């Protein structure tokens, strides 16, 4: 079985699972875990979008 993901979907999957682990392991209470997990997810995807647009600008 071969799965082919494009760059953005691969980054999204990566961000989702890494954020879950970061949230659980880096915070104490459930509420803080959820908040930190969401924060990491947004930062991961935000970083991808910013880097993508930066490369687009550099390329032009």
């Amino acid at each position: 079985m071969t799965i082919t993901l494009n760059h953005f979907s691969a980054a999204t999957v990566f961000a989702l699972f890494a954020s879950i682990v970061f949230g659980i392991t880096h915070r104490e209470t459930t509420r803080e875990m959820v908040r930190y997990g969401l924060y990491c997810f947004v930062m991961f995807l935000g970083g991808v979008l910013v880097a993508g647009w930066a490369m687009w600008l550099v390329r032009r």
Partner: protein
Amino acid sequence: MANSTTEKATDKTKPAPAEAVNMMSVLAPALGWLIPGAGHVIQKRWIRGLLLFVSIVTLFVLGLAMQGRIYKANGGDILDMLGFIGDAGAGALYIVTLAADWGQGAIAFATADYGTKFMIVAGLLNFIAVADAYHIAIGKKQ
């Protein structure tokens, strides 16, 4: 008076008592390394353990399904060794993958490189989960 001052000074310089090494502080990290999330499950952190298991295993299996490459111990190159350390963090997943001779990496697929990174990151995330299980076992974390 002088004695109480000296006593206070010695209290401040006295090192904190060493954390008790109990059976769980050895078992939880070991089991957590072998099966992602198991270190949390045996300490009755069911949901955390399940989420860790699902996250790490899914990332690793996706990496394999994307035709990612698994690193072996005798890579020779420094980057190969680092890749091996990352992969080895996945515990039983890594052992099974090696035993079944999966993860050979397919150059024909452009996404194979993503897969390789997915597997390394899954192992590294499991190292963090193992450290967390240890902290719970010694009472440093709830």
